[in-house]
């Protein structure tokens, strides 16, 4: 129904683009058999559904046992696919398939806004090669891989609300998004921003638009309160920051700079998007663009106030800027045609298209080739733990390795980077940091006693995270080196001090 206005040539082009993007992503995804560290959290939930048909609600391994609260739809979808196809195949292919829809949706949105297929294809191509989207999601199993295309698909449907069937689509997709990832809140903020901008610009809003916006707000809030009720009762409003310790929040944001943001988003979408925001917010009125402008502004504000993880924020921001680059492209080409050197217009157009190669394609492919997931030595060490240690052992590792450790070695962990419903998150984080960095064997033994640690996994990543080259107390009698391969060392902790 949304494709009825498209020409056959456009359908073919966008179809080919989708296939090409999917194959490219798959090529990179299969270059490494493992997933990113945090994806092993999702891996365990999907694996649990595939095995039992039930959602994992209590994790016996992480933190020695803790409840798990997640939105279920994405996990059930992949769990269901895992009944039909091999699990590893589903986990590698499905997220890449979902993400490959982003350029298609961008094409459709820009095509609808500008009525220019060239601009639509330009924006779609940009969205393929945005570094943060292409690289950060390559080995990911996060529900966000489905939430991003769905969120922008909702915005696309929103452009068609005059059609009867699109309302039903809107209802289904917004409900699905609310059951997939809490990032749907970004959409709500964008909706409210859209209402605000439209009011400021004194544009008449369609009754149906307002109705859909309010429906989205209510349904999203309702579902959030149902699923996160326990977390709300537990954390109150602190839930908005997912109970992530301040130290980790600051660490996320200390590495962000303007240049860093440019690299993540890509130069062309950044400048194209910013230009469009300036032009359409201050000079030209265009209601359909205000939604994307308000989304871009909302995400920027959320990033500014540190209410969203930088990589997630940059992903949403970059798709928005890619969409906005379409109208900017149209404006520039039309403007050029009005100048005295208009006979150079084809050359100018060609230059813009060619710029995609050095500014987007090459950096993205280079970064994708460099992108690492769980390193093979760490993987081997975790598998070793599974086969050579007692089943009830507790293993201490850096927080980011926690999920992978639980998933691969099937052993209890002291910490990971999912902090929801954890009462002593800050304390644990500090204790784990001290356990790796303390020069005193007695302090380490006290901490091992506190968390009943049997083994310590000391990897290159942990060295980098704590800026150390070795455990200062490793030569003490209390630490017995039981594994040492390719820079990953596992110690058996023979001493524990219990404070009584």
């Amino acid at each position: 129904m949304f494709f009825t206005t498209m020409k056959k040539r456009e359908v073919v082009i966008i179809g080919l683009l989708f296939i090409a993007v999917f194959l490219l992503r798959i090529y990179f995804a299969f270059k490494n058999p493992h997933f990113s560290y945090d994806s092993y959290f999702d891996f365990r939930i999907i694996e649990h559904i595939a095995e039992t048909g039930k959602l994992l609600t209590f994790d016996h391994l992480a933190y020695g046992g803790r409840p798990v609260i997640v939105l279920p739809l994405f996990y059930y979808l992949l769990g269901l696919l895992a009944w039909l196809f091999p699990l590893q195949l589903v986990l590698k292919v499905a997220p890449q398939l979902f993400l490959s829809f982003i350029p298609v949706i961008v094409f459709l949105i820009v095509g609808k806004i500008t009525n220019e297929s060239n601009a639509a294809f330009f924006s779609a191509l940009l969205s393929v090669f945005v570094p943060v989207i292409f690289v950060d999601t390559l080995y990911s199993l996060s529900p966000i891989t489905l939430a991003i295309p769905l969120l922008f698909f909702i915005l696309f449907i929103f452009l068609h609300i005059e059609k009867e069937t699109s309302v039903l689509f809107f209802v289904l997709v917004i409900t699905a998004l609310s059951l997939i990832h809490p990032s749907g809140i970004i959409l709500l903020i964008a909706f409210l921003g859209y209402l605000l901008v439209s009011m400021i610009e004194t544009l008449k809003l369609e009754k149906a638009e307002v109705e859909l916006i309010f429906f989205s707000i209510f349904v999203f809030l309702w579902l959030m309160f149902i699923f996160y009720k326990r977390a709300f009762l537990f954390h109150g409003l602190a839930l908005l920051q997912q109970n992530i310790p301040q130290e980790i929040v600051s660490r996320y944001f200390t590495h962000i700079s303007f240049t860093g943001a440019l690299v993540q988003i890509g130069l062309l979408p950044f400048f194209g998007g910013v230009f469009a925001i300036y032009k359409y917010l201050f000079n030209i009125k265009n209601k359909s663009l205000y939604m994307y402008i308000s989304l871009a502004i909302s995400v920027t504000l959320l990033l500014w106030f540190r209410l969203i993880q930088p990589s997630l924020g940059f992903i949403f921001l970059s798709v928005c800027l890619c969409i906005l680059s379409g109208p900017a492209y149209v404006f520039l080409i039309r403007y050029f045609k009005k100048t005295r050197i208009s006979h150079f217009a084809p050359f100018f157009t060609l230059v813009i298209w060619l710029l995609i190669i050095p500014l987007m394609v090459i950096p993205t492919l280079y970064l994708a080739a460099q992108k690492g997931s769980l390193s093979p030595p760490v993987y081997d060490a975790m598998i070793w733990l599974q086969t050579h240690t007692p089943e009830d052992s507790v293993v201490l590792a850096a927080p980011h390795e926690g999920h992978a450790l639980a998933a691969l070695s099937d052993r209890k962990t002291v910490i990971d980077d999912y902090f929801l419903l954890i009462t002593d998150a800050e304390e644990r984080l500090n204790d784990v940091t001290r356990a790796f960095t303390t020069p005193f064997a007695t302090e380490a033994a006290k901490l091992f006693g506190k968390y009943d640690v049997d083994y310590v996994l000391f990897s290159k990543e942990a060295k980098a995270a704590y800026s150390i080259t070795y455990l200062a107390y490793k030569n003490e009698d209390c630490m017995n080196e039981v594994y040492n391969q390719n820079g990953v060392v596992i110690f058996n902790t023979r001493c524990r001090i219990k404070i009584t």
Partner: protein
Amino acid sequence: MNKKKELFVLLPAIPFLLFIPFIWRLSMGNFTLPGEYSYYYLSLLTRFGIPSLQYHFVYWLLSIASTSFLALLFYRIVKVHTTSALTRITATLFFVFTPITLYLSMSVSPYLLALILLFFGLNLIESRYPYASILPFLGLLFFDWLTFLSSVIIVVGYFSYVGKKRVVNIIPLVVFFAALFFFLHFFLQFPFVIEKTHPASLLVGLFSSFGSTHGLGIFMTLLSIIGLALSWQSKMKFLPVYICTTLLLVLFLFAGEPALYFLNPIIVGFASYAYVSLWRREWALSLIRTLTLATLAYGVLFSGLASITQKVQSDPTQDILASVEWLHNHPFYSDAVVLSHPQKGFWLESDGVRRAYVDYLADDTKQDVTRKIFESRDFKKTSALLEENDITLLWIDGEMRNGQVWNEGDEGLLFLLNSGVFLKVYNKEGIEVWKVR
């Protein structure tokens, strides 16, 4: 729908809704009233020879009956101000299913009585005998200052809203009532307390969805904001209501959660106004209308159900009160000072004997001593503190052992209990009473 038919709907619906938590808790084999403050008020009733350790289901039934009466009084107030049956029924059902009303129906609380008196007075204002409303308003003088102040705000606001009197005309009456209030409270020491559940933050205290027992429903509040926005077209008419809402919110911020008992009916008023307006509004998308109204209704229902679940599953249990009864009947320990978590204080004193060392009303010094005793693993220090404060017994339950006070089996005072220097004198269903040897 005529008014008889409305009552035909409401009269069975109100008690039915209020009976849900009662039946639910009873089906779990727990015949006690949930929460803590009810036991404080029950302990006061023992002065009049009213038994407090038994017949809880009778008190609960009385609360349900009183809350049903309150809901009907609320319905009558709404009836005066709207001709729409839909608004009246929606408002009344919303009112019944708010976490606050549900809480009142499950507890013994003077605030329930205060609200009944207030609503009864407001009803009488609209009757043939408006001056008779002075009688229930006089009754409000016997409650705490927060109830008095909230009632004054509502009554003055109501007069201004209905345009019966100009505010300046009723100021002398308010001053007279205030003087009477101070006079009464100067000579008679009423043992009322201002209930506080010590929320982690103001927002947590404001909304039941964030954990408050006295809080507002989040969807109800959301709807009331829409109602407030819709009422803005007649802002001069609604000005007294806006002022009332603001003042009650200020009272909540500075005085405590019970101010929400008085704010709740206004929130419900705005919420039902919004809901009915959305119902009647001409929608461009009929599917979205149905779904939006359903989501909002489910949201309100969900807040109520969540609040019911939370309260029905909350302590005390029969076993907790059995341990209090054991203390009550014990020849040596019946008036011994007992140390436990502050949350258990009112339960331990529910038989009318002031034996709990700390409860929600304890000062900071007592709270500090309690913390020190619970954390200490030094017997000398602990026994000195126990002796200094005349504490004879320690009352410990599973909740205290599993996170409320301690996380590990040998943490703090538990280490001393395991070491044999204390004697366990009571041990049933996870409830232990210990005495220094």
